[in-house]
């Protein structure tokens, strides 16, 4: 491949902050198209897949992982500075994911004691947040992990010069499109589908399970109170529901509020 050909390709980097690296892995899981796909980009950095890395300006930076340490934040700011587009991939980068579930509920010191037996914040860790809390994000691809088809379509859109299409409707829609029996209605299971961003093709209800919310609540459209009510009505305890709502939404204000209120109720 000649230099000029390479010059026309979008220069990309795939970076990861604090998380499980599952979103990079999902890209590597696109086995059928991986070689063709990667050959369409000029890859400047892909930590999990390659030793080759260049600290250069990028057309597109894909960032997975949450911002949890000063090191993360420094890396992120550096990436933002040198990239024209920054795309958050995966729930960690979008919402902070499960590691954010206790935000504003337990302190870092409490967590340090629980896990390491020391209180000092050795790692300079702070409450995990999505990258959008700190820098401008151009697009978000949600999911824990991202759906590989969705990621592929987003990459194709970007190659074609278009904005990626990401659903902003709830899992219930896909559940219905597939004709899956509704697990809330049929079995009273505590499904979070009504408030969670679709795009997974309703994997959990398709397996007869209640959605745990891994694609995160729909921004600006989540009726957390209604979910609390709907599950209460089906006999679930507040502690159970609120824990569950927090799994992938520790950073959502309206869900944090539920938590705080219930805690204080419990204190009495």
């Amino acid at each position, binding site marked *: 491949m000649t230099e000029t050909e390479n010059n026309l390709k979008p220069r990309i980097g795939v970076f990861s902050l604090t998380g499980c690296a599952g979103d990079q892995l999902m890209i590597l899981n696109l086995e059928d198209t991986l070689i063709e796909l990667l050959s369409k980009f000029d890859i400047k950095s892909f930590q999990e897949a390659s030793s080759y890395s260049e600290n250069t300006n990028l057309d597109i930076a894909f960032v997975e992982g949450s911002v949890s340490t000063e090191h993360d934040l420094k890396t992120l700011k550096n990436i933002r500075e040198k990239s024209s587009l920054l795309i958050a991939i995966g729930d960690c980068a979008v919402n902070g994911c499960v590691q954010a579930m206790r935000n504003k509920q337990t302190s870092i010191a409490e967590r340090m004691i629980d896990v390491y037996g020391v209180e000092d914040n050795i790692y300079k860790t702070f409450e995990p947040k999505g990258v959008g809390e700190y820098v401008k994000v151009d697009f978000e691809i949600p999911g824990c992990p991202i759906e590989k088809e969705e990621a592929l379509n987003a990459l194709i859109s970007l190659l*074609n*010069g*278009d*904005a990626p*299409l990401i659903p902003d409707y709830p899992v219930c829609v896909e559940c219905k499109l597939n004709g899956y029996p509704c697990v809330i209605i049929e079995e009273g299971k505590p499904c979070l589908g009504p408030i969670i961003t679709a795009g997974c093709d309703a994997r959990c209800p398709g397996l007869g399970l209640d959605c745990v919310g891994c694609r995160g609540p729909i921004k600006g459209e989540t009726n957390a109170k209604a979910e609390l009510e709907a599950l209460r009505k089906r006999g679930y305890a507040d502690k159970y529901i609120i824990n569950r709502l927090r799994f992938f939404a520790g950073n959502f204000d309206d869900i944090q509020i539920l938590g705080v209120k219930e805690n204080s109720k419990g204190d009495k």
Partner: protein
Amino acid sequence: MTVKNSLTPLEAQITRIEEMTSIEKLFYLKLIDLNTVKEFHYTPGQFLEVSIPGVGEAPISICDVQREHGRLQLCIRKVGRVTNAIHRLKKGDRLWIRGPYGNGFPMNLMENHDLLLIAGGLGIAPLRSVLQYALLHRNSYGSITVMYGVKCYSMMLFREEFLKLFREGDKLNVKFLLAYEDSDDFQCYQLSCERSDRCMSGLVTKLIESTAITPDNTYAVVCGPPIMYKFVVKELTQRGFTPAQIYMTMERRMKCGVGKCGHCITGSSNSIKYVCKDGPVFTYWDALKTRGLM
């Protein structure tokens, strides 16, 4: 399987592109299939669904009057996926269209009447087709007044064309008025020095306030951003226009253009309208009857 599907997009070629502002371009299109050319008729106010394969479709008003068969013009603002993709196209490239859809303006009904065309921003695009139609059939219509509101000189669409009308319109019994929002705009200021009664700084409603219009025997035709309607209609009704004398064209999300996808449905149970097929042209009376239309 050979089926004729009236909803399948047709191929068209871009014969010319004019850059009009930083975000709007004028596209000249030519239909490619000669058989369809003959069947392709459009009237002012109708729109097309324009497709870029692999990107999507967008409803776009035809902004000229039909002169030659199979040729038309679209004025497109880039705001999203499809319109960005259209803006990436070059002369000679192809795109796909279907239509024309929508009711269009009642040009026959308006014959022998004076016309008052009021547009804000991109809203001038569909009104330009009305204007061109009336000019093409000049004897069938009375006096024509065009009121056009822009942000600034550089955002003015069809600039040369309209400046010519601004200066020489009277020969055709056309009064062209311009309102500009940015009071510091130098070029517009020069125009207002040239004809202070025809160009002024302010919103388009200011033009209505400061111009003598008689509602008798006049139809008002309005198009602009949604917030503009309320103010314009208020001015007009104060001037004595009846709700049936005011025509306006509406915008809604659309996926089909032919009354199926449901996105453009508006109203309450007493009056439900599809903006695509019952409109996009409505009278103010329709708007009064149909909740949420305006």
